[in-house]
Each structure stands twice: as structure tokens, then as C-alpha cells.
């Protein structure tokens, strides 16, 4: 590991496992209509992810990575295709059930952190707990605990603009972690950070993955980051690119 050039990173084979995948997408397409023109962001993506895997999604800009991740995170709906999460067809769920999945099952980490600017780090992390119906006290207690875990125990009352980029992303990761989801989806979580800070964040993800068995899907441009994962999915023009011949090179 470590000497990879991005051109050598290709879609890896699925693991051979007997248990059912927790994520199972078949023929996902996503079409954006912009007036007369249609943008085919996804054109038939099928993939399966098993519990405890760490997967990276790579591909050129515009290849559909963010689109795919948003669908997997139940933040957006595909134009066609099927997406099963824990064996349940997501398209068949109602709004409340989707809210519960976003709240309990999946933690989403955004490239731009997406923290509420007027809230403290503690309040930002406590937000999913509030929506889960916890009392303020309990929510704050657990939020503080998770902030300590990501190394921000001394920054609870800081607002986002009083934190560095890396610290803000740690807050966002803490927010994604706080309801103890089994899946974390991160869309270029280090994209807005310098490489040293990016390394720290990746170290945090790997620790979480290793110690808690969290399933991780990380979208990235960075071949070094992709190389750290167990499996790579490469997208090109809205499709998964299998390039066996490159892999052998």
C-alpha cells in the first residue's frame, strides 16, 4: 500500500461472504432534468456492501459519486432501480421511516461539514439526539462523550467559526456517530482540509471502523485515501468501471 498511482486504482471484486449485504443497490439510475436537457448522473449502478466493510468510491469529477452516496444515505431518491437497506426497499418507506433511517442507521459526513453556524459544537452534535427524542440533558451528555472521542472534549462550547477546518470536520463526524449508526457515509470528508489534517481525519475513520466495526463508505479523490480502504469502487460517467486489464498492470 502507499505506492499506488490513481490510474492503477480500479474497482475491486466483492468479498465472498455468506451473510446478506446491508446495502444492496441494483441498476440505480439518476436523471436530472434541466429544462430540455437531461443529465444522466447515474446510468445503472449495482453494488453490494457488507457489514463492517470499508469501501471507497472514486472517479472523475462529475462521474456520479456524490449522487450515488446521497441515494445510499436516503437523502435523495433514484430515478429508477432498487435500493435495499438491511433488506428493506427504501423506495417503499414513508417520510417518517426515512427520517428514522437517517437518524438511527446512517451517519452522513459532508465535504463542507454542514454545521449549524449559530450552534455550539455540543449543540450541533446533540441535534440528531434531539430528533431521536432524547431529553436535553441526556443528549448533551452523549454529545459531549462523542466529542471527547473525536478529540474535542475541550471545544464543546465553540461555534463552528471558532474551530479549525479539521476540528469542524471532527464535529461533523461526531454528529454522524452520535446515534451509533451502523453505517457512515462520507462525501470527500477531507476535501476541504490540508493533507496533514486529512490524514488525521482518515485515522479517526479507520479507528472507528476497526474498533467499532462501523461500515464505512467514503467518496474521495485522493488515491492515498482510497488505498487505505478494503475495497474500491470506481465510477465513470455514471457507471461502475471494471478495468481488469489495468488491475493486472
Amino acid at each position: 500500500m502507499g505506492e499506488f498511482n490513481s490510474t492503477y486504482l480500479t474497482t475491486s471484486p466483492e468479498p465472498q461472504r455468506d451473510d446478506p449485504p446491508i446495502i444492496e443497490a441494483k441498476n440505480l439510475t439518476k436523471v436530472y432534468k434541466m429544462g430540455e436537457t437531461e443529465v444522466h448522473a447515474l446510468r445503472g449502478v449495482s453494488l453490494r456492501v457488507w457489514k463492517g466493510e470499508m469501501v471507497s468510491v472514486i472517479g472523475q469529477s462529475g462521474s456520479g459519486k456524490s449522487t450515488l452516496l446521497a441515494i445510499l444515505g436516503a437523502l435523495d431518491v433514484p430515478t429508477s432501480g432498487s435500493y435495499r437497506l438491511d433488506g428493506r426497499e427504501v423506495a417503499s418507506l414513508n417520510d417518517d421511516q426515512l427520517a428514522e433511517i437517517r437518524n438511527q442507521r446512517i451517519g452522513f459526513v459532508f465535504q463542507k461539514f454542514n454545521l449549524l453556524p449559530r450552534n455550539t459544537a455540543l449543540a450541533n452534535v446533540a441535534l440528531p439526539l434531539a430528533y431521536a427524542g432524547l431529553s436535553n440533558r441526556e443528549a448533551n451528555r452523549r454529545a459531549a462523550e462523542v466529542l471527547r472521542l473525536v478529540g474535542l472534549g475541550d471545544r464543546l462550547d465553540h461555534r463552528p467559526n471558532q474551530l479549525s477546518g479539521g476540528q469542524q470536520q471532527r464535529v461533523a463526524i461526531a454528529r454522524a456517530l452520535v446515534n451509533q449508526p451502523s453505517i457512515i457515509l462520507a462525501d470527500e470528508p477531507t476535501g476541504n482540509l490540508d493533507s496533514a489534517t486529512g490524514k488525521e481525519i482518515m485515522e479517526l475513520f479507520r479507528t472507528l471502523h476497526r474498533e467499532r466495526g462501523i461500515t464505512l463508505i467514503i467518496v474521495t479523490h485522493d488515491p492515498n485515501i482510497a488505498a487505505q480502504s478494503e475495497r474500491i469502487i470506481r465510477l465513470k460517467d455514471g457507471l461502475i468501471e471494471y478495468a481488469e486489464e489495468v488491475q493486472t498492470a
Partner: protein
Amino acid sequence: MNFLRNFGIAIDALLANKLRSGLTMLGIVIGVASVVALLSIGNGVQQSINSQITSIGTNLVTVVPGQVRIAAGPPTNQGIRAPTQTRPLTDADANAIRERVPNLLGVAPELTSNNVTVAFQREKILITARGVTVDYNRVRNLEIAQGRWFDAAEDERASRVAILGSDAADALFGGLNPIGQTIRISNAPFTVIGVTVPVGAGFAGNPDTSVFVPLQTAYRTISNARTATGARRVSVIYISALSSDDIPRVEREVTQVMRQQHAIREGEEDDFTVLTQQQFLSLAGSITGILTLFLGSIAGISLLVGGIGIMNIMLVSVTERTMEIGLRKAVGAKKRTILMQFLVETVTLSLIGGTFGILLGVGAALLVGATGIIATTITLESIVLAVSFSLAVGLFFGIYPANRAANLQPIEAVRYE
């Protein structure tokens, strides 16, 4: 997500943009203030008219000649119609009522003579002279400020005594004490024995600008006033019932007596009219009710405009906060939670605005009342109305923006810059 938390979020969001929240609130403040102020003016006018009506006498039943209609209905039928055909009332009518209708507080006929010259030394004024009986001050609620009312003997003897209304006394005597002074009424000399307490203009003439003399004296000195048959004429007969519950009976029996007096056959229409305060009150009530409704609707329109302002700002706010809303949904907020968050925000805005509006409106009403030009009465109902109206405005105009926010997709958290 409980209400308190939503309230906290709402306060926070409102504080994030203080100037904007304040300006938005201003619309509601002005709307509610004008509802409170204008309704209190409407109510004040209503009350002052009512008190004028009740001040003309206690449980008063009035007989006037001719057919007079008081009706509260469509504007064209409203008001007091001029008498159609006139057969005068006489003091014999008054006596008959006194004798044949039992249990009355008093019966007080009045002979009204307008534009009578009343003079004291060089001072001369034209006022209304009222020839009345001893019962009159009791029936009409007239109180004596100075001196005394005349007695029955003075009426019988046709004594030349006079009681002045307060304004008339002022005009004639200025600062001087009128009691015991001699004035000339239609050139006949009278001794002033009393001055009444001011009551203000009412529905049945203004006692303050009148001079009262005994009825028999009036016949001799001011107006002979005989009917074609030679009976002594009176202008109006005031009757005071013992209680307001008794008014319908008195009205009925007075009508009977009057019909007999005037020899009206069955099926024929009355040539007189028995009026009660209730009729005046309900007429005045329907007029002032329209006034209050009118003022209230004007105020309501400004509240509506304030509500549209709220909606406008909330729509801007929803657009501006697309990232926030998307993020909240992305971490598990349900549709109705977002809906509630924004509804609580508009309702908080309109309720705080409503509170300031009530303070401003009450202040304005007190200020208007203090000028003395228009009476104002601040009623609890108008405040409750204003609060519930502003609450309703907040809800009504908040629903649409809140619904918009609730229907945003969580993907907006990523997409929106």
C-alpha cells in the same frame, strides 16, 4: 422534539436577524394596536351613547304624540320617523295614566317651548322652557346642584318659580349665585329657586340648557297651549317604571289607557307612540355596532397586511435556510418537526408582535380618551380578539412557508450553497 425546544430554535432564529424580525413584527404590532385602539373607540362611543340613553331617566317609558317608529333594520328603515298624523297629548292623558296604571315611580308630563327668551338684568338668552310637574326631576333623574326643586303646592298655585339648567345658569349669572334672583321668562318675572347638576345632551333634549317651571305656571305665562277641544296640551309624557322588568307591563297598560283616552277603536292604529329605553338602546346598539364593526375591519385589514409581511419574510427565510433545513432533515428531522419549527417561529413572531401591539393600542386608546373628544373603552374582548387574531394570522400565514420548509429534501443540505 418538544415544543420548548422548537420555541428555543424559533427565538434563536429570530434573534439571528434582529432587525428583520423587528420590522416584520412591526406590521403585526401596528395591526393589533389598531384593532385594540379602534375597537376601544367603537366601544367607547357605544358606551357613551348608552349612558346618555339611560341618563334620560330610570326605567323610562315615554309617550309622544303621533306615530313614531324606532326600528333597527336596514339603513333605510332606521331612525326616528317624523310623526305621521298628530293628535296632541293632554294633561288629562297624564292624569289618566297616573290614576289607572298602578305601581309607577312617577308620571311626568312636559310642555316644551323652544326658543323662549330668558333674561336676567341685561343678559338675555334663548333657551327651551319646560313646564313640568313635581315628579319630573325624579322621573328624569335630574339632580339639584343648588337650591331646591319646586313643590306640589307651588305647581297648584302656579307660582312664578324657576329651576335653571347648569349651562343656562352660567350664561345668565356667570359666577353669581342665581338662587333668589329674579329672571324674566317671556317677560314674566320668576324667582330662581334651584340649579340642576349638569348631565349633557341626551336623547330627550338637553336639561343643561333648559329652564324648568311648574306646569300650571307655564300654561299661564309661557304657552296657553289648548287643544281644539279646550284641553291643556302637553308635549310628552315621561313615565318611570319601578324596575326594568316591569317596563313591558307599563308599556302595555299605558298603551291601553291612551287608546281609551283617545277613543281609538279596535283595529285602528294608535295616534300616539309609547317608547321605551330598550328601543333606543337597541337602535343605538345597532348603529354603534356597525361603527365598531367598520372600525374593526379597517384595523383587521392592517393586521392582514402585517400577516402578509410575515409570510413574505418567512418565505425568504425558508429559502435562505435551505441548507439548515436540509441538514436537519438529513440528521433525522421529520416533516412535521420542521413544520412545527417554522410554525412556532411565525406564531412567536406574531404573538410577540401582538403583545407589543396591545400595549401600543391600549396606550393609543388611553391617549385618545384623554383628549376628551372621543370616549374610549378598552374591553377584555377586544384584547382577546386581537391576540387570537394575531395568533390566527401567524398560523395562517405561517402554514405555507412552514409547509415549504417541511417539504424540502435532505439532499438540499449538500446541494445548496
